[in-house]
């Protein structure tokens, strides 16, 4: 039973969604239709409950039970100052950088810099919709996502986001960064439903950094949906950095579809958010594709972070590597669900999955890790492994026996465990910034 359906249309929460839906500009017509269909599906499904498959360990009742309101705009100068003070890694403020910034779901030209590198078309979806944009429709409405409540909710309010198109054979040297900033207060919770579409042409190369962030203590809900369409033999690196306020709710969906011989590396760095659910569906939809899902979640206090990933091997000779690491302190709850599907056609699939977790507090933090292999082909290699452990007492003693203090040694070992994930980040500047972030978090 959904937490709410059409039957609950009279309650405050659903009425608030209805009102927001009705207030949208009905143009262009195709988009309006897409939104109407999505909202009808969402109304029918409601929010998932803990009885729904895939949601047993993550209770989204706090999201389902909240009314989210539009936020008053912040004065531009103050906004710039506060955003820059967040010192977000991966957000490049240099004038020559290509940077798209969205505040509460809407493109913020004053904070952005859309000087697109050669071979790239970069801009906001709102801009495209103003000139129709129906050529994007297929990338905004995937059949396989229609029964996913949060994607349907995002589509119901689809009005802006980032669209990045890389021409075939274009090699984009500098990363393109996207920042989704959401604001809100305890009394007036904010909300954004950002959408990102990346279309990487055949043989192109690009690195995209997407950051979702907010100001400390602010209360809001970010419901982000990102789609990658990766052409044959293209090389795409995607780094997703979640640094939401600890009072924020965050749900994300990443869907990637790869053409033959392409390589997609997706890093997921989850540090913030009170209640977080990251969904990944990577579709290896061409022969000889390679996909790397590389993740880190670092939690403390009462944070709840759920990473649910699906690696979908649909064609032969695909290689996937999934490495997720969790660091859990306080009373935090971590969930890792790693599903690997090897379809009948996907012979000679080579898949390795690993989830390693470090529990820092004595017994208050918990982690649930679950691999799920569904193999329908007969000639494949699939391995998975999960570990849950505490700091290595011998390593701790070893460092101390050389003169390093107890706290210093602990922090260094935690940092080293986590920073290992960053060794797979290809861009050296970004890697250094992320290392600095983790260093500040634990070692300083």
């Amino acid at each position: 039973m959904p937490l709410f359906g059409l039957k609950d249309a009279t309650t405050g929460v659903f009425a608030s969604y209805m009102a927001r839906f009705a207030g949208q500009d009905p143009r262009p017509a195709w988009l309006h239709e897409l939104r109407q269909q999505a909202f009808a599906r969402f109304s029918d499904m409601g929010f998932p409950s803990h009885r729904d498959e895939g949601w047993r360990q993550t209770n989204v009742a706090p999201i389902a039970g909240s009314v989210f309101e539009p936020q008053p705009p912040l004065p531009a100068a103050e906004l710039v100052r506060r955003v820059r003070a967040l010192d977000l890694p991966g957000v490049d403020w240099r004038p020559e950088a290509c940077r798209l910034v969205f505040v509460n779901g809407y493109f913020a030209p004053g904070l952005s810099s859309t000087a697109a590198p050669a071979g790239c078309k970069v801009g906001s979806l709102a801009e495209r919709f103003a000139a129709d944009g129906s050529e994007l429709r297929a990338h905004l409405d995937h059949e396989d996502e229609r029964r996913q409540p949060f994607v349907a909710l995002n589509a119901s309010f689809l009005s802006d986001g980032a669209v990045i198109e890389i021409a075939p054979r274009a090699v984009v040297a500098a990363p393109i960064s996207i920042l989704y900033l959401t604001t809100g207060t305890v009394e007036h919770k904010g909300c954004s439903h950002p959408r990102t579409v990346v279309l990487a042409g055949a043989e192109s190369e690009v690195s995209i950094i997407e950051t979702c962030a907010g100001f400390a203590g602010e209360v809001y809900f970010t419901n982000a949906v990102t789609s990658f369409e990766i052409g044959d033999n293209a090389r795409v690196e995607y780094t997703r950095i979640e640094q939401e306020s600890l009072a924020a709710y965050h749900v994300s969906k990443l869907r990637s579809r790869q053409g033959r011989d392409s390589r997609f590396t997706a890093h997921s760095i989850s540090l913030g958010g009170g209640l977080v659910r990251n969904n990944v569906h990577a579709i290896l939809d061409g022969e000889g594709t390679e996909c790397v899902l590389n993740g880190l979640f670092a939690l403390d206090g009462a944070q709840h972070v759920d990473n649910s990933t699906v690696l979908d091997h649909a064609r032969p000779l695909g290689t996937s590597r999934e490495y997720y690491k969790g660091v859990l302190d306080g009373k935090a709850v971590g969930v890792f669900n790693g599903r690997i599907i090897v379809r009948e056609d996907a012979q000679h699939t080579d898949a390795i999955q690993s989830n390693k977790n470090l529990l820092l507090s004595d017994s208050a933090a918990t982690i649930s890790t679950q691999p799920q292999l569904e193999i329908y082909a007969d000639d494949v290699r699939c391995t998975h492994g999960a570990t849950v452990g505490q700091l290595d007492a011998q390593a701790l003693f070893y460092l101390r026996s050389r003169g390093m203090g107890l706290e210093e040694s602990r922090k260094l070992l935690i940092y080293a465990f986590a920073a290992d994930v960053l060794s797979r980040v290809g861009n050296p500047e970004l890697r250094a910034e992320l290392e600095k972030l983790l260093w500040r978090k634990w070692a300083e």
Partner: protein
Amino acid sequence: MLEIKGLHAEVVGREILRGLDLQVKAGEVHAIMGPNGSGKSTLAQVLAGRDTYAVTAGTVRYLGQDLLELSPEDRARAGVFLAFQYPVEIPGVSNNYFLRTALNAVRKYQGQEELDAVDFLALVQKKMKLLHMDDALMKRAVNEGFSGGEKKRNEIFQMAVLEPKLAILDETDSGLDIDALKMVAEGVNALRDPERAVLLVTHYQRLLNYIVPDYVHVLSGGRIVKSGGKELALELEDKGYGWLGEPDLVDAGAAGRRGA
């Protein structure tokens, strides 16, 4: 420098050291020998402050201080160094960062100025040359993927950089080929100084051909049962432990010969 009196220590309720006495003066090299299970490694770990061992009785004075009162890091900062029997791998922490942080913690504690990256590099290069080590080591993670011999050499290298006052080598010679053994000996001999002392815990006499001790002690049943000069090691090599007439050593006699 080091004065151990009536030391008793246990691990999970099992008593391993049972009234150990030992006195080490500055400038001396002492070898502690004895069969497996006699308490050699326990002694080394207790002196370094490993908390899996509980000291139940006895005292340890080091340079006039109560050593047992100090945390492991403060012991290291005060100049105690343990070369581990099984050095620990620490993925993700480079030798360079680790050693510089450790050295500066020691220097700070001893009232010396901390070394910057440039001075540290110069010091490290000097010590590497002394021990014929490869520069690439500093960029590698601490002991990660090292062979057994490389790990032991890295212990000696750390010792050479940290320049301890009291160096305790816990079976550093075990499992080494003769070249690596010579290198370890070179490192220890380079450290010998009227102000420093060395405690060599070893199972084999071979090491003592290269590091000549001033005193040799036989540990058995958690106590020192025999002490002598360097010739005692040769006698043990010859006769094993059985002739010492200690009940714990009768069975171990054969082991002693096999080990040699």
